[in-house]
């Protein structure tokens, strides 16, 4: 049984008139997303702005009401309305946000910020609480002098680590990290990512790691799902996505990552333009008449691609041929 299972998740936002000069009655922010996360595993959810990655996260943690579909944590349905259930969920799933400054209450000291989830869920006395907070700070490499300071006294990286400490306070099973390092400098980013990995090793936590930065995702996640226009267009292991991408959108995304290879940059650019051209001309083939991705087709044990019906058929034949 997977730790988290998301089934046919849909989040639609109704709109009147149209932002893109098109009149639609619904924005299909998330439209039929399926995935699962095993214990101790990291799933990287990748997509450009507007792809629905943050909406997916919010729907899982209950900040957004799903239009349809369900979310299961260890087999228990989270999308049910019973209250007791919900409290348990908040405890088992925690979140780290992108903007560390606005996600920490500016009027509270670090001690109170980190202790808040403890006060909500655990009955500790003052001393126990303090010890626990100090332990948590220690996990993310901050000393006891941080206790009585306010968030603004810390640098971006330190604040993000405080966010991590708060997220692990209740011993969650799953942490949803929504662009946790996007606002940070390289060297600080390295630090936060290292701490996140360390915590994962120590506490066997699962991550849903949301990011637009494929380099960071490659470093953090062993399974990756690419989201486009509210649907997953390709999912698989790190190797599947980075070395055998099949969907045109995945290939386009990969080609667009700037690479540190000055000698071959002209070659890289030519390759990128070729794929971009291919994307522009063949895009219609990979999406249905409404511009939505096709259902996922399994191409290997771990690798799923939203291939159009005709290609999918071909592929499954090939697969059969290989197996025979």
């Amino acid at each position, binding site marked *: 049984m997977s730790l988290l299972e998301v089934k046919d998740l849909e989040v639609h936002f109704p709109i009147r008139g149209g932002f893109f000069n098109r009149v639609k009655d619904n924005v299909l922010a998330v439209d039929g997303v399926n995935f699962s996360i095993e214990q101790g595993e990291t799933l990287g959810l990748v997509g*450009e702005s507007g792809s629905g990655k943050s909406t997916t996260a919010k729907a899982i943690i209950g900040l957004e009401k799903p239009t349809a579909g369900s979310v299961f944590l260890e087999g228990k349905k989270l999308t049910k309305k019973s209250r007791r259930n919900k409290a348990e969920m908040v405890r088992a799933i925690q979140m780290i946000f992108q903007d560390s400054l606005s996600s920490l209450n500016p009027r509270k000291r670090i001690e109170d910020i980190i202790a808040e989830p403890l006060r909500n869920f655990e009955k500790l006395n003052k001393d126990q609480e303090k010890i626990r907070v100090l332990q948590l700070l220690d996990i993310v490499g901050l000393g006891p002098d941080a206790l009585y300071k306010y968030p603004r006294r810390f640098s971006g990286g330190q604040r993000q680590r405080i966010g991590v400490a708060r997220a692990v306070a209740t011993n969650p099973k799953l942490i949803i990290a929504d662009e946790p390092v996007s606002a940070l400098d390289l060297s600080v980013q390295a630090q936060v990512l290292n701490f996140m990995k360390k915590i994962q090793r120590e506490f066997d936590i699962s991550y849903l790691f949301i990011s637009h930065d494929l380099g960071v995702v490659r470093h953090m996640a062993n399974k990756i799902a690419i989201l486009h226009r509210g649907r997953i267009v390709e999912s698989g292991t790190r190797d599947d996505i980075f070395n055998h991408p099949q969907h045109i959108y995945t290939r386009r995304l990969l080609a667009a990552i700037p690479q540190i290879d000055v000698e071959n940059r002209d070659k890289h650019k030519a390759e990128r333009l070729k794929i971009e051209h291919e994307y522009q001309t063949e895009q219609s083939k990979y999406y249905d008449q409404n511009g939505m991705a096709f259902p996922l087709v399994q191409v290997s044990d771990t690798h799923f691609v939203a291939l159009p019906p005709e290609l999918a058929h071909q592929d499954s034949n090939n697969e059969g041929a290989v197996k025979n």
Partner: protein
Amino acid sequence: MNNQPGDKLLEIQDVSTAFNIDGKYYDAVSDVSLDLYKNETLAIVGESGCGKSTLATSIMGLHDPNETKVSGKINFEGTDLLSLTDDEMNKYRGQKIGMIFQDPLSALNPLKRVEDQIQEVMVYHTKMDEKQRHARVMELLNQVGIEKPERIAHEFPHELSGGMRQRIIIAIAIACKPDLLIADEPTTALDVTIQAQILDVLKDIQNENHEAIILITHDLGVVAETADRVAVMYAGQIVELGSALKVFHNPKHPYTRSLLRSMPQRNSENDDLYVINGTVPSLQKMPTHGDRFAPRIPWVPASAHEENPVMHELEPGHFVRCTCYKVFDFPAEKEGAKA
């Protein structure tokens, strides 16, 4: 992609920019010297607070003289920009020097249609009539890769996507065919695919107009893809300067090497990333002498640093500050030593 560098366009000599904090002035940029040639892209790269944007705004003269002291010389085609009055400087801004900002939404006027915003620069700097200006707007929108210029010209900024807005900003910046384009994190707020398109647009424009571009960014990937030369800044100083090829393939300064090492790499998945010791000193706590990067590589003996680090030319065009690069090695590469 490697353009032939033309004549020298900009000469920055010992420029320091100091901000007034509680009555005292602190250097955000200290003693930066740089040359810029026509038709080249120079990337200034560094982490937040290293002074890269401050250097750009110093060139543009965007600092409040009551709160900021800018010293040194910025020679632009023979004129020292720092000696100009505000009115004189206004003739340069927008006409000879264009600037592209990071956040395209806040750089555009939300109440004006795209066309009017682009025309504004021309009204100020040129004697074109309405018709000529309109023709130029269409030309510019085409140049920045907007497919339906007539329609887009009539829209308001909020009706456009982030990539489109950045294209409009570029159109405004190049409206008067400036000789120098300063792009401050032009693609940081954009998705990677849009980022690639915007960088292509900048390159195409350069191929057409041959202006020099100063590209300010923290993204080493963007630098490696676009820059001819790279200046790496740390704590207000340039610590390494050279061709993109040299800086990325044969980085010398400990800071450059550390930065490159802290990036997630292919096949680094199971390793911890390299973390640079300590933090960037704040303006008030900036060391006044000695190597500013020294506290972050404490295992390098003090004798390896210079008393007053200067730039050393290792090869023609490749400069490195301080002598510590000679002995610097990562702790992991030494036996048993730990950061």
